[in-house]
């Protein structure tokens, strides 16, 4: 950098040059003081748009680095735990519930818990256009999703429903013999 300045100073032929810096409405610039006035070396080098471009380029580099790291992390995570969509637990029920309007989703799980809410949302997604109504027990079909089989059995007994099917994830499809809605 110093060599460059000396070269420029020699090139413009100044005997006693001194370097300076100024900022104004058109942006900042470096200049050389001459006896007769000032001569710009790098005209308008620090204009708003140049400063902004420089900052944007730095941010772009940061973005690219973080993007690379993020992708590496995602790839590793997917290799360790494959993508699981909890709603697929319910996909086997689609045929049975084909002409059903609303199904009661009976559970003892805390729906403020992220995983329970996630499973309910994904079940609703997979079973659409069947509407799942949380803890409603007067529908023809009921989905019983409890923390353990004993609680599930107790719920079924209380409602007076007939269990029809249980899948490998412990979710029970039961039929209500006295439904209020189809």
């Amino acid at each position, binding site marked *: 950098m110093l060599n460059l300045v000396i070269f420029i100073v020699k090139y413009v032929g100044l005997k006693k040059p001194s370097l300076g810096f100024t900022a104004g409405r058109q942006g900042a610039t470096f200049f050389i003081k001459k006896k007769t006035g000032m001569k710009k070396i790098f005209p308008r080098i620090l204009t708003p748009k140049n*400063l902004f471009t420089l900052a944007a380029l730095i*941010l772009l580099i940061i973005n690219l680095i973080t993007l690379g790291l993020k992708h590496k992390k995602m790839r590793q995570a997917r290799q360790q735990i494959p*993508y699981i*969509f909890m709603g697929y637990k319910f996909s086997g029920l689609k045929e049975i519930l084909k002409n059903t*309007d609303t199904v009661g989703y009976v559970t003892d799980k805390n729906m403020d818990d992220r995983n329970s809410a996630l499973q309910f949302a994904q079940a*609703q997604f997979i079973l659409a256009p069947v509407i799942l*109504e949380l803890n409603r027990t007067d529908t023809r079909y009921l989905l019983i999703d409890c923390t353990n089989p004993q609680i599930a059995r107790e719920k079924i007994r209380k409602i007076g429903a007939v269990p029809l099917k249980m899948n490998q994830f412990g979710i029970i499809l039961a039929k209500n013999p006295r439904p209020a809605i189809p």
Partner: protein
Amino acid sequence: MDFLLTTIPFALSCAVGILFMTWFLGQRCRISPVLRYLLGAGAGLGLSTHILFYSFILFDGFRRGPVIFVHLVLLAGGFFLYRSSAPSRFRPTSFHAAKKEIFLYSILGLALIPIWITARYYPLGGWDAWQVWNFKARFLFLAGNEWERLFRPMLWRSSPHYPLLLPLTNVWGWSLLKEPLPRVCQATAFLFTFLTAGTLLAGVYHFTKHVVSALAPLLLLTLPFFGLLAVSQYSDIVLSFYLLAAVVCMMLTFTPPRDLRENPRIDARYALLAGIFIGFLSFTKPEGMLAALLLIGIMFVAELWPRRQQRLGTPGLGFFLAGVVLAGLPSVIFVLAYSPGNQTFVNGFLSDAKPVSCYRLKMILAFLLVELKSEKWNGLWLLWAGGIIVGIKKCFQRPFVWIPAFLFLYLGGVISYYWLNTYFDIGWWLQSSLNRILFTLLPVVALWLFVALWTEKKTP
């Protein structure tokens, strides 16, 4: 085969939009072909959702035949208009003349690769994708003539009051398939990400003619959080695109071409386009409705501003309003006839159980500041703030001053809503939604800053 059947509906929509856009803008079109195609594709996709919406009303459910037939008729009509108005428009552009643009769009194409890779990691999108947007799409696709059950208040978790532009786009994407494949939703998200980034690049390049235009979409596409939200299959990227398209068209309306400078009337074609994109915007999300209302208001204020030299005039304003009404009609029908109203709303000013408080407002404002400097943005909002500071005069000069006014009013509206609606715990609500509000504004902020900083002369 499935891939082909997935792409045909979207290709058809884009082709219809591009043909009509080219015919409508005609011989004296002053925007580049790329910008025209991108806006045309976006308008075509919006038009398809409107056709679907009206078909649901008319035929009481999803009927593939009439919908595909209308699209084919429109394609034939668009092609006829295109050929009859300008048969020689297929002139190839020389490579030398377009090499700068080819270079820019090649960079954009490369930057979209990480977005595609991210999309593959989330084949079914994020939480709101399966709870709200894709659920609605599946419901509309599978429910037959019981589609109106979707608007039952008991489905409050799926926000039945949200407009249907994204779900209907996905239904249209499935129209040649037997079952609702998730890859269509992935393709929709990717398509709108591409349209947003492309329109941003083409828009900035149109106004600046500088290679630095590439930086605007690159900064967004390389930001991991932007990529993640873009491919989450939410309606935010759709809102972002239509907002950007509306803003670009309004900028084109407010900055007339040089040969029309003597004419006090502005080219009203872009006013009509702005109106159409504002209409589509209102059908994306409730926030889109707010943005649409603000943009309509801004158009009127700009028209009535006493010191403006160029004016739309009554016919121009009529064009604008015609666009708004045409494209905004489904939103009005939806709100009046189908929406069950917001089931998750408690007016904090009237509620004794959940009243508004100063603490809530303070928390919202503090959270906004925390969010803006959150590390998930990699300092992007700080860069925007820096850009505004170093180019404060340029950013707030006359042709652009309405953009910060819009941003300010929009954020003000959103903050007021957060404050007023006390249904949700504010901490959770801000954490899960404020980042998406900011995400939708990113392309518009980028457009504003890049154009303002790189515009050399003040446009009269």
